[in-house]
């Protein structure tokens, strides 16, 4: 393909960021329109990519829309991007959220120039992570994201924003420090930075400079902080609680998914043996994530913090799906990443509207809002049902596939079928999930109406529009999942082949 469509999608937001940086803060409207245009075009292009992606089974494992150019020949680094079945859904999700968060941020008035520039830069780096097939490029994109996040949380956030921003940055850098050491050891084992080549040849065919298990855990370290895996999750509630709404949406929607994506792309694909060997540990951690995350969620009284902790629980499903190492569970995990991005994105967006309109974020001080703001209530309830995994929403099909797949898993410890048993325990997470979502809905929207919320505005036109887009997507995937599962399967099949062989 001569037309470098992926590069165009990745770098258009960066171009937009530069254009915005050249305007002045007083022209807020212009800035917002530039931001909207430079995220809308990538979205449209990504839709084209999504529909022209070849889903036939013969294309399994083939990288599509590939672009490769020599970058630093001295260390064999290439500018190498491309999409396969695992990365395409997440790549598409980011372009979608990229556009929607600009709409969500429409009311930002504080230093809009810097805000939108950082937001677009953030989109570029996340898109880059999902599209990179070269380790150096991957790592660079992975790291760039820290800077916009630091500024976005610390300037436009709320509460202990500076503390949260520092915590976020230090945790992320700690993870990526591990990852860098891992990447370097992979590089000197294979003398290649190409993920595709290393996966194709198999790491086992090289003489390792350090034990494979060490490389595996160094790389996993970076992804585990990001996903996040217990006990590295403590940055997440702080960052989510104090970040501005749009950033929470991106954070929950796609930033966390970088961790899950990395695990599939690197830990499982490149180290199939190590993945199988250490799967019991990770499955156990997944169960802790699910149950502990859900239990802590029940106790939260801050509306954003509650949603943040529910993410910890939901990311446990992803981890469980990935390390159960079956076709269905890996497909389910990828689908869960996509679906969680939509559902939690919508939850955060709506929570942001509620907080903005009521000036209240403490759940105990809210109540009866269904009377005053019926439309927001409906939207929030739909998102909540999705998070609970009610059938016909995308949450249901994703969780169903994850559990179905992980229950089929043959991961054993001795004779103990750890994957099966822990899956059964983890299903309790759904029950707890229903608990915290319904209890949240009841406390915020139902009960007796309060007079102090009488003049509160309901969702305005723009808010209804983007919420509608979210809802349409949630139901589309829920009712017609094969639009995605077909794609995901082409990416998962070769990985399963690696695991089997």
């Amino acid at each position, binding site marked *: 393909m001569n037309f470098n469509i992926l590069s165009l999608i990745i770098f258009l937001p960066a171009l937009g960021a530069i254009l915005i940086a050249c305007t002045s803060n007083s022209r807020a409207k212009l800035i917002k329109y530039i931001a909207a245009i430079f995220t809308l075009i990538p979205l449209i292009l990504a839709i084209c990519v999504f529909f022209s992606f070849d889903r036939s089974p013969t294309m399994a494992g083939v990288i599509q829309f590939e672009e490769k150019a020599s970058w630093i020949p001295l260390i064999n680094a290439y500018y190498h991007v491309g999409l396969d079945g695992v990365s395409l859904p997440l790549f598409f999700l980011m372009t979608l959220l990229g556009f929607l968060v600009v709409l969500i941020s429409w009311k930002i008035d504080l230093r809009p120039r810097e805000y939108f520039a950082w937001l677009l830069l953030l989109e570029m780096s996340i898109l880059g992570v999902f599209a990179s097939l070269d380790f150096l490029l991957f790592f660079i*994109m992975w790291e760039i994201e820290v*800077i916009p996040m630091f500024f976005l949380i610390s300037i436009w956030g709320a509460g202990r924003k500076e503390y949260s921003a520092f915590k976020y940055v*230090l945790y992320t*850098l*700690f993870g990526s420090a591990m990852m860098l*050491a891992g990447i*370097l050891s992979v*590089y*000197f084992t294979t003398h290649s930075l190409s993920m595709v080549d290393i996966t194709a040849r198999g790491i086992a065919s090289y003489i390792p400079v*350090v034990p494979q298990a060490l490389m595996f855990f160094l790389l996993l370290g970076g992804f585990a902080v990001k996903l996040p895996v217990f006990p590295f999750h403590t940055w997440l509630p702080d960052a989510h609680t104090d970040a501005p709404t749009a950033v929470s949406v991106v954070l929950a929607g796609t930033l966390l998914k970088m961790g899950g994506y990395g695990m599939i792309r690197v830990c499982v694909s490149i180290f199939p043996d190590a993945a199988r060997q250490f799967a019991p540990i990770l499955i156990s951690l997944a169960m802790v994530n699910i149950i502990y995350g859900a239990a802590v969620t029940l106790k939260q009284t801050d509306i954003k913090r509650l949603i943040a902790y529910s993410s910890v629980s939901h990311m446990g499903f992803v981890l469980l799906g990935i390390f159960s190492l079956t076709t269905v569970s890996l497909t389910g995990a990828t689908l869960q990443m996509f679906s969680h991005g939509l559902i939690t994105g919508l939850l955060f967006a709506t929570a942001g509207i509620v907080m903005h309109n009521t000036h209240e974020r403490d759940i105990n001080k809210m109540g009866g809002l269904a009377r005053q703001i019926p439309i927001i209530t409906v939207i929030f309830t739909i998102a909540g049902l999705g998070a609970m995994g009610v059938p016909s929403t995308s949450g249901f099909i994703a969780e169903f596939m994850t559990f179905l797949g992980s229950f089929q898993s043959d991961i054993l410890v001795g004779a103990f079928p750890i994957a099966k048993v822990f899956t059964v325990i983890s299903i309790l997470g759904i029950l707890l999930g229903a608990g915290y979502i319904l209890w949240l809905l009841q406390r915020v929207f139902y009960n007796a109406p309060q007079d102090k919320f009488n003049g509160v505005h309901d969702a305005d036109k723009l808010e209804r529009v983007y919420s509608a887009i979210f809802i349409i997507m949630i139901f589309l995937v829920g009712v017609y999942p094969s639009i995605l599962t077909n794609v995901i399967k082409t990416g998962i099949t070769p990985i399963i082949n690696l695991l089997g062989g």
Partner: protein
Amino acid sequence: MDLVLITPEIVLLVSAIVVILLDLFLQRKSLLAVISLAGLAISFGCAVGLWCGNPQTTFNDMLTVDKFALFFKFLFLVISALVILASTDYVSKFTRFQGEYYALVLLSTLGMTLLTAATELITIFVALELISISLYALVGFLKDSKSTEASLKYMLLGAIASAILLYGMAFVFGFTGKTQLGDIAQAIGTLSLAGGSASFGLLLGLILLIVGFGFKIAAFPFQMWVPDVYEGAPTPITAYLSVASKAAGFAIILRIFYTAFDLPTWLSQDWGIIFAVLAAIGMTVGNIVAIPQVNIKRMLGYSSIAQAGYLMLGIATMGLSKSHDFLGQSSVIFFLAGYAVTNMGAFIAIIAISNKVGSDLIEDYAGVGKRSPLLALALTLCLISLTGIPLTAGFMGKFYIFSAAVQQNLLWLVIIAVLNSVISAYYYLRVVKVMWLDEPKFEGSVSSSGALRLALFLACFGVLLLGVIPNYVMKLAEWAAQMMGF
């Protein structure tokens, strides 16, 4: 004798003398800076002219002009030009001795360019002294109590370090009977068969050399002078110290240890381990002590100790390398280039900001981002590069050095180093936070002269260039490492 080979040095010397003489007659002192820059530019041109061609030796093998020497000559000339551009604001406030200031900068640059080509112990020592003595004077240039204290401290400790260095050279000479680096290598080759006390004495000499050079590059545990001197010296000189003086030290370490002491293997393994341990302790101490600093110059002083630790990681790689590839050397050279532009950029921005807020305290930098966004952006870029976040020179340098180290089974050291980068993020980003988030304490924007802005622009351009398309400089660094003659 081939004088063509030392034309860059001759030009520097002549321009230093011209500057001092013209200072007596000229009323417009700003012309002195222009003359100094012209001298540097001509010298740079001469060095470029020498680039093509094989390594050549001259003055009875005392000097070797090879790509290694020329690469560092380019680096030092560029750094000096940036320092002089950044000094114009600062120096114009002096009532006297403006000519001497520029002349001393040129003379110490002369010492550095000589040092890069020196392949004989006495010449190396003389070149080092030329650098040091010019710098002692420059550090004390402000003549206030802090500056004088800094100068005195620097001179006393520097003199001791020089003595130790000389003592080490004496040991090496005593056991090999040679002062020329290539001859030393040969002598060691025959010596190693004998073993016994000779090898012990040689090792002692090497350790003394490491101590002496350790002072010049501000490596742990010889870094005690750094914070006071960095704080007291005029800021452009602090920049010069932290970049050029350090790079010169590393250049000569690379040359001596690679050409004279690389073989036999047990010897290079021994000093490789010493450097590895010093690197691990140095970066940890530098980074941890940098955290509580309130003065930005002191903070950057400690950060430079940590950066020296990363660089020593590269030296250790060179020592432990069994395959005799050039990855260790070229990664150190590349890192130095990246570190040079980054730290220069940071100090130039600090000169501009401190000029306005009248203090070097980090808390007084509050709100610079609101008052002068471009300047704050430049400083942010440099601090991000020092942290080692991608798309900057700092990241590429670290990536290169760490990748070289992993290849020599130094993964444990690389893990210490990457964790150190995380620690360093805390104090670098704290400055960023203060600049962008806190409310301004001063009125108006930060004004700066055209020269300063030009220097800052060049430095930032360098940071991005090395971060995004590092290929050309990497290639140069690789050539420089491979074509080291003796």
